[in-house]
């Protein structure tokens, strides 16, 4: 039983990472097409990671630098375990949305720790921006999350997904607004433009990653792939029913749900990339103001709307 579970966990993390790495290539391809370029092959992500992991030399800035990366990889994989993927509840019954929110902070903090340990001033500035960005987008995001929690009267993501069997959350009027807000928050979570200032390569030499090279950078790319899957899945789980279309426990249902989940996160990711390619970059305080003024206001409107719906 335990071995089975561990095997399933291993399978799912592998799949998630695979999808994530694939998405990195797909993303570059999409961006290239928008730029009217040919772009790299869709499997470019795998090549990049393979190259980085096969680098001959490797530098380290001390044990904190190494452990921090370990920490972020672990954190992102753990997060994925607590998210229902295509309706499959791995560990998601054992925790809830708050746990996921805080688990998502583990990789971010680990990454920040590694960047700090690298001793590069650019990295510190990048981390500062990343953390401020996190503070910014979390406010509208948690408000929409609370709207969902209040509406479905549960804080467990798995249960929220289950309750969307009949009707996806996005089909309920207030959650259209909430989903729009959450999608902009997603933009910040994925560090896509207009919120890509934490890693601005030409300004602060790619920020937190400035000192990462070789295998460390490879691990970082895996982590990045994981975040893409985690955040898009979170969005899909919250607003798009987790991609669950068939409810019987058959193998076909698994496959269908998985396929729908894949398509949905692909769509969400594509949307995010399209926004990314069409906008310039916000400065960090502009991003902060954007999230805390307009986004938070919209989110709060949807929350009050939901609240009024629930209490009446």
């Amino acid at each position, binding site marked *: 039983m335990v071995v089975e579970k561990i095997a399933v966990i291993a399978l799912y993390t592998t799949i998630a990472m695979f999808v994530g790495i694939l998405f990195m290539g797909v993303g*570059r391809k999409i961006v*290239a097409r928008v*730029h*009217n*370029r*040919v*772009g*790299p*092959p869709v499997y*470019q992500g795998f*090549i*990049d990671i*393979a*190259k980085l992991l*096969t*680098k*001959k*030399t*490797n*530098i380290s800035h001390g044990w904190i630098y190494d452990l921090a990366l370990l920490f972020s990889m672990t954190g992102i994989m753990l997060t994925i375990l607590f998210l229902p993927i295509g309706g499959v509840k791995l560990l998601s019954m054992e925790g809830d949305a708050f746990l996921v929110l805080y688990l998502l902070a583990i990789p971010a903090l680990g990454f920040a720790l590694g960047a700090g340990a690298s001793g590069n001033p650019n990295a510190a500035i990048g981390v500062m921006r990343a953390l401020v960005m996190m503070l910014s987008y979390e406010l509208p995001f948690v408000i929409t999350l609370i709207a969902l929690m209040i509406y479905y009267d549960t804080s467990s993501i798995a249960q929220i997904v289950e309750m969307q069997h009949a009707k996806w959350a996005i089909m309920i009027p207030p959650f259209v607004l909430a989903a729009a807000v959450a999608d902009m928050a997603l933009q910040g979570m994925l560090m896509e433009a207009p919120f890509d200032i934490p890693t601005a*390569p*030409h300004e602060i*030499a*790619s920020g937190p*990653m*400035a*000192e*990462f*090279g*070789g295998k460390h*950078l490879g691990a970082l790319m895996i982590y990045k792939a994981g975040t893409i899957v985690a955040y898009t899945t979170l969005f899909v789980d919250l607003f798009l029913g987790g991609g669950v279309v068939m409810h019987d426990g058959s193998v076909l249902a698994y496959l269908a749900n998985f396929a729908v989940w894949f398509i949905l996160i692909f769509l969400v990711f594509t949307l995010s990339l399209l926004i990314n390619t069409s906008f310039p970059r916000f400065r960090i305080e502009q991003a902060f103001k954007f999230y805390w003024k307009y986004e938070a206001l919209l989110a709060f409107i949807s929350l009050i709307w939901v609240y009024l719906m629930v209490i009446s």
Partner: protein
Amino acid sequence: MGLFDGDIMKYEDWNKISRIASRKSLWMVHFCTGCGAIELPPVMTSRYDMERFGMGPMATPRQADVLLITGYLTVKTLKRVVNVYEQMQSPKYVISFGSCPINGGMYWDSYNTVKRLDRYLPVDVYVGGCMPRPEGVMNAFLELMKLIDEGKARGWEKYQKYYEQYKRNQKMAFNFEREKDEGA
């Protein structure tokens, strides 16, 4: 003891994977001191689109595989170039642009210009011309990929092997500069 350094997988096989991967994913740090830097944007943008080969610019030497020397080097910039080169992770490659790094080019009689980059850093591919056109630059990249594929792009190994000599040459160049400074 390394996991991938011969215990589990043969070094040659590992090397092969490494070569295949790095051939298709050359990340470059371009050292834009000379005039050659202006030739790079066309290479990156939609006309030539270097990204279809998996190439792309990187912000720091730690992340990059290819060092582009885009034009002449003075003694002062050479220090930085050496610094950057040493911060890159092996395997790493150097492409030099234009005539200046080859033989001094139009600065052949300058007192302060590095005449032969080869004395200080192992250059894998030279692109001739003053300046080379983007086609030439593209061609150089393809050449480098071919060399990597064939296992001939071994400049970084050379640098490790003849480290003392390279250092001596570099030091001579830097000392030259210091004497000049003191004289002035």
